[in-house]
């Protein structure tokens, strides 16, 4: 993999990741394209610029950790891991098929380089705290990043974890909320509204950075600010668009958990050419 700080180069990687997401879910005939597409800039900025990691040394103790707490967005993580060289690219389209390492939700048994198995929502932030605490005990300067879904933070455990992380000043931890405003049953504001979201995290003692989650330069700045923030954990509230990059998928509740048809795959790939 070739790391870069250039937003234009990162944007081009994002396009490639989006193409993978479309072909993977299209080939699987199931999966979660919408919430994978909304998180592309976040994941790419982390893996290609921000995070300290080395595909040649996946067990490097000083590596930064990434946990996909919103495990249903597995396609965006799989595409990134494959493009980084951690896992094979040629089998990405076996997603969700029997025998594939690319399971429906991230599964450490099949991909040992995953930091955690996820899929049951609400658990990843706590696991990230555990990793951040271990780094602190070992006096390692690595950081832990946890990507949360917006609907996911309706889970009570998230707020148990939020309370713990600020009280214990876990400042080597950075959560990112992929705030794409949609969940399976519809718009978040209609299901169980999160607002005022930034105030909630602030009240729980976190440093809060709202950002356009598709603006790579803004994300880079936000991650730098998070790393520089001492004494408290940081949450980046990334305002995103579900289905981002594919016109007919954008802001559509349908594509939370429905894969594109072969015709839709073709249309989407044209848009992502």
């Amino acid at each position: 993999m070739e790391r870069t700080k250039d937003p234009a180069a990162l944007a081009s990687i994002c396009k490639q990741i989006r193409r993978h997401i479309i072909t993977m879910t299209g080939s699987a005939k199931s999966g979660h394209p919408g919430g994978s597409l909304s998180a592309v800039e976040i994941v790419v900025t982390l893996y290609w610029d921000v995070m300290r990691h080395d595909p040649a040394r996946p067990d490097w103790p000083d590596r930064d950790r990434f946990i996909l707490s919103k495990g249903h967005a597995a396609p965006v993580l799989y595409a990134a891991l494959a493009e980084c060289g951690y896992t094979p690219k040629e089998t990405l389209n076996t997603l969700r098929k029997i025998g594939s390492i690319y399971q429906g939700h991230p599964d450490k048994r099949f991909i040992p380089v995953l930091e955690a198995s996820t899929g049951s929502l609400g658990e990843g932030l706590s696991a990230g705290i555990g990793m951040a605490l271990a780094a602190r005990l070992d006096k390692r300067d690595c950081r832990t990043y946890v990507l949360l879904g917006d609907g996911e933070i309706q889970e009570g455990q998230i707020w148990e974890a939020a309370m713990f992380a600020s009280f214990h000043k876990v400042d080597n931890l950075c959560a990112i909320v992929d705030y794409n405003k949609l969940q399976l049953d519809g718009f978040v504001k209609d299901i169980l509204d999160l607002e005022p979201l930034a105030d909630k995290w602030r009240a729980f003692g976190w440093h809060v950075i709202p950002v356009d989650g598709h603006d790579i330069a803004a994300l880079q700045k936000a991650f730098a600010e998070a790393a520089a923030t001492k004494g408290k954990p940081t949450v980046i509230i990334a305002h995103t668009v579900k289905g981002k990059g594919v016109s007919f998928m954008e802001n559509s509740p349908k594509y939370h958990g429905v894969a594109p048809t072969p015709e839709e795959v073709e249309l989407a790939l044209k848009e992502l050419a």
Partner: protein
Amino acid sequence: MLTAAKYEKKLGPATREAFGRTLVELGRENPNIVVGDADLTKSTMTTYFAKEFPDRLFECGIAEANMVAIGAGLALAGKIPFVSSFSAFVITKGFEQLRVLVAYPNVNLKVVGTHSGISIGEDGPSQMSVEEIALACALPNFTVLSPADEASTKWAVRWAAEHYGPVFIRTGRPKAPIVYNSDASFEIGKAVELVPGTDVTIAATGLLVAEALLAAGQLETEGISARVLDIHTIKPLDEEALERAARETGALVVAEEHLVDCGLGVRVAQALARRCPAPVEFIGLTGYAESGSSDQLLDKYGLRAANIVDAARRVLARK
């Protein structure tokens, strides 16, 4: 080897106390041992560890699900975490986290439930864990231990620290009757034959091991030779010892401080159905208990040597 008639019930430290003391020893030996607790350090006895290693004890507050998942994260980053709370809370409130973050990816987390069973006494049923053998055994990759006294608890905690993989240890609140000398040795997955016997086998776990020994003594005076097995490892179960018991004694009584519908008894029955069917009687709980002293509750809910003796007579009649 004991002879049943010679067993004298003497109280030793509670198994939770043995857990807390052993944890400190482990902490001194290995800097990777870390502990999580949910506002019960003075009850689970992780307080000893907290005093000596304040930086390695994570007080999580009353948030068990978060504690279990933090433990998983610590384990994934190379630590050997023990998370502890009352059994009634840590395994129920943390069950989903144990399932997804720990059991199926085979993460190296140790879960110690204290205050198991009805012998906790006055606090009553909301605090009494009578389901956790079922829940812990339902989790693939977990080893499930249920030690009877101080010596066996020390071994169980040490074994858990040395073994790579998830472990659940069931411990109790009251002082536990001494079953073993301090130099006793144990083997994972191997029942201990405490008393030899030829007519009937009593397979017991936890607090009921001492009652089984008393029962065997009583049966001996009636001319009945009862074998006593301490099933300290509930999973993996020592099926060989149970099969041998069924072949050699022809009848069994299983005794546990747990719901009979989903505990050690059903696991024994499953093993025997496969290997060597034999009549079995079950001593355990059929529902929730109430407040009272530990002794009153064990009497009222039928978890005494006398109940085991009755069950032995019943099962012998079915031979």
